[in-house]
């Protein structure tokens, strides 16, 4: 083994030891996403005739194309599986790859553990190689589980394998981009943000591309994956684009790594101010200062996502056609298809915002684990006030991020339709989605208060809400199951009117749950 790679095997075993559960759960979760679509389609449509009718309408539906991908062979179960799952599967594989890359590279550097490893007989490239191999193992596991579950279902073997292989390759492509992102900043948090941005941009590019500008689709790894046309005349050459992009990003990451110092970013750290500004005079000021980049990043991201939805403009109306199934599916059975489409878009924006809300509610836990909470709570800042500062920033951040999403939607819509009055039209409706988002963040706060070591549980309600939204109608889940999603209770705003009762009830639940979580935190040990 060359000197620069010495110790890779040992590091890989250590990485897999740390990641084994993570890889298992991601593999099960992602393959279940694909497999459950097959079950859902077979369960929902009793005959081919019914599926044909639905397929004809779905295939013309701009909103669903923007969310899922180009409509191909939707009159087959395989085509439906590929269509409904591949974009979200690619995002999930990207997120898994990102977390594996970051936890073994930049996070290790930031904490100084990497230094300890590098002081032993370990080659300069070994930690990165071990990370890459761990990500390879994880993505192969995900792709294999997905392909195998579809082959066993049974669907056509070659197409199932193409769908699984493409998933592995798109995951590896995002491994490459994450490795590049990990070289850029000395802050793990910033590197996470950059890697996430690449995944989000890939999704947004293909969304706009699939609807109106095919060239953009070919700028996105998710577009290449879907370009393999699994279950609709599978072709293999787009896989080469994924392989090529992976190779390029890995070469770039390696070049960046070789010319930077360990522990440093690409730019030397600039000196900071010798004195604190007025902002750093209260816990609230500190929390805002710490959360500011995150809040602004999400705000920009949601604004762009909203913009992408908005640029679909009124196309929805002309493309929905006269098929009743479509109208019912995509406009949530509402009279005004445009408003119905934007209700779905705002719901998507709200679900994405929940990601911010939950991570923000879990931030104080990270502060506890880092030992920062100890420093602050040894001053005259009480536990209540410290945690309340996080609550304020989380709630304010949710409102800001949602408003930005609504504003982006309005601006996109106004640009396409020329209706200048629409710019602010979706801000209010977007904010109407805040109560269920706040319920999810309150649940995260409850986890932080009661089970601080199991913060990952806080993500389950969001996963549940996404599953209910994507699969609830398809699988015909009973109402009480769908009712577990706080979003399920909200009317389809803006197509339907805001229900004051529901809004107040959700806010009351959020407040109560948040308070119980805070109460538990006041009474438990710190750290």
């Amino acid at each position, binding site marked *: 083994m060359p000197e620069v790679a010495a110790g890779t095997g040992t590091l890989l075993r250590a990485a897999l030891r740390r990641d084994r559960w993570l890889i298992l759960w991601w593999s099960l979760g992602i393959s279940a996403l694909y497999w459950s679509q097959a079950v859902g389609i077979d369960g929902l449509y009793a005959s081919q005739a019914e599926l044909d009718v639905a397929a004809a309408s779905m295939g013309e539906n701009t909103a669903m194309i923007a969310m899922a991908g180009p409509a191909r062979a939707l009159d087959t179960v395989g085509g439906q599986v590929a269509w409904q799952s591949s974009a979200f599967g690619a995002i999930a594989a990207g997120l898994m790859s990102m977390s594996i890359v970051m936890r073994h590279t930049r996070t290790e550097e*930031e904490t100084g553990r990497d230094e300890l490893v590098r002081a032993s007989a370990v080659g300069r490239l070994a930690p990165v190689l071990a990370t890459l191999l761990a990500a390879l193992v994880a993505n192969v596991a995900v792709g294999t589980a997905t392909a195998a579950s579809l082959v066993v279902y049974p669907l056509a073997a070659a197409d199932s394998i193409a769908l699984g292989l493409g998933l592995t390759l798109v995951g590896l492509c995002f491994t490459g981009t994450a490795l590049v992102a990990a070289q850029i900043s*000395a*802050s793990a948090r910033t590197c996470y943000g950059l890697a996430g941005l690449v995944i989000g941009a890939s999704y947004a590019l293909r969304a706009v591309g699939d609807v109106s500008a095919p060239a953009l689709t070919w700028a996105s790894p998710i577009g290449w994956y879907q370009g393999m046309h699994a279950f609709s005349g599978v072709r293999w050459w787009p896989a080469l684009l994924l392989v090529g992009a992976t190779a390029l990003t890995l070469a770039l990451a390696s070049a960046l790594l070789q010319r930077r110092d360990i522990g440093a970013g690409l730019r030397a*750290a600039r*000196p*900071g*101010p*010798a*004195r*604190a*500004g007025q902002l*750093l*005079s*209260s*816990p609230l000021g*500190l929390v805002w*200062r*710490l959360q500011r980049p995150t809040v602004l990043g999400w705000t920009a991201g949601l604004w762009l996502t909203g913009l992408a939805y908005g640029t679909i403009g009124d196309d929805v109306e002309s493309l929905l056609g006269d098929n009743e199934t479509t109208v019912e599916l995509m406009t949530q059975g509402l009279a005004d298809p445009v408003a119905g489409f934007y209700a779905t878009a705002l719901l998507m924006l709200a679900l994405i915002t929940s990601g911010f809300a939950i991570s923000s509610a879990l931030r104080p836990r990270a502060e506890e684990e*880092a*030992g*920062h909470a*100890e*420093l*602050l*709570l*040894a*001053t*005259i*800042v*009480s*536990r209540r*006030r410290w945690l309340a500062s996080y609550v304020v920033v989380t709630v304010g951040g949710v409102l800001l991020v949602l408003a930005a999403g609504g504003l982006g939607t309005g601006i996109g819509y106004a640009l396409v339709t020329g209706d200048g009055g629409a710019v602010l039209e979706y801000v209010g409706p977007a904010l109407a989605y805040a109560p269920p988002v706040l319920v999810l963040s309150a649940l995260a706060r409850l986890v932080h208060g009661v089970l601080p070591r199991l913060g990952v549980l806080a993500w389950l309600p969001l996963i549940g809400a996404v599953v209910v939204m994507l699969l609830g109608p398809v699988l015909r889940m009973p109402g009480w199951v769908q009712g577990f999603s706080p979003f399920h209770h909200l009317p389809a705003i803006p197509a339907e009117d805001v229900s004051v009762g529901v809004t107040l009830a959700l806010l009351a639940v959020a407040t109560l749950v948040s308070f119980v979580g805070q109460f538990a935190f006041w*009474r*438990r*040990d*710190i*750290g």
Partner: protein
Amino acid sequence: MRTAPTGASVPGVDAPIVIQGLVKTFGSTRALDGLDLEVRAGEVHGFLGPNGAGKSTAIRVLLGLLRSDAGAVSLLGGDPWRDAAALHRRLAYVPGDVSLWPNLSGGECLDLLGRLRGGLDPVRRDALVERFGLDPTKRGRSYSKGNRQKVALVAALAADVELLLLDEPTSGLDPLMEAEFQACVREFRDAGGTVLLSSHILAEVESLCERVSIIRDGRVVEAGTLAELRHLTRTSVTAELERPAPDLAGLPGVHDLVAEGERVQFEVDTAQTGAALGVLVQAGVRTLTAQPPTLEDLFLRHYGDAPDA
């Protein structure tokens, strides 16, 4: 509306820190197992013990970060859990492992901690920054361990408080800074302040502390002034005599006796030193070396052996 027994204040004592029978468990681990500790006003109290003995846990209970399971804790006359924020106005804390926010500069951390402690004196802050040779413009992530500790130390020493809780505050400091730290602690004590100092640096403890408590497995095994503790240890004696001294072996308090003709070497309990010397004098002393117990001996005895050894 507290239900679990926490530190009810101990009546009739006005020492800044009084802990009686403190118990703290984490799952099946008994981190503190009936700890008693008293720190008197105006003293620098050394808090010693091997790694994992429970020193940091005790300090974190005093800070109200951890809830006690049993026992009574009085901090500055109040309950450290219930009155945490109010009591913290009167104390400052330096953790052993200082973790700063990676993207805040040292100066920002200093000002933040000072303001959150109720305001800090900018003149004193600048003087301390100067004294400790701290560069306040570096970011938290680029400070070394010693420099992170300096930030926390300056923030604590610049505060207008009556009690310092220091948990191995100097483990990363260089000798010059160590001397500066000791000078600062003395100034603080001379101005009437009280200090609880957890430390493994024996020279520091010896030069700063009037009284020490040695903790092991969650309880205090020895407490008192350094002189008192020395009294409990042994002096090692080497002598050349004019004739053999056979009585020595039977003397109470004499240990590890090695006699080679007229040359003897032994350890003697400090309380029995006089009697042992008497026997030596009877045998006629040619040369005599007596080494008083060092602090190392004191600690090694408590750290290494069973507590009742």
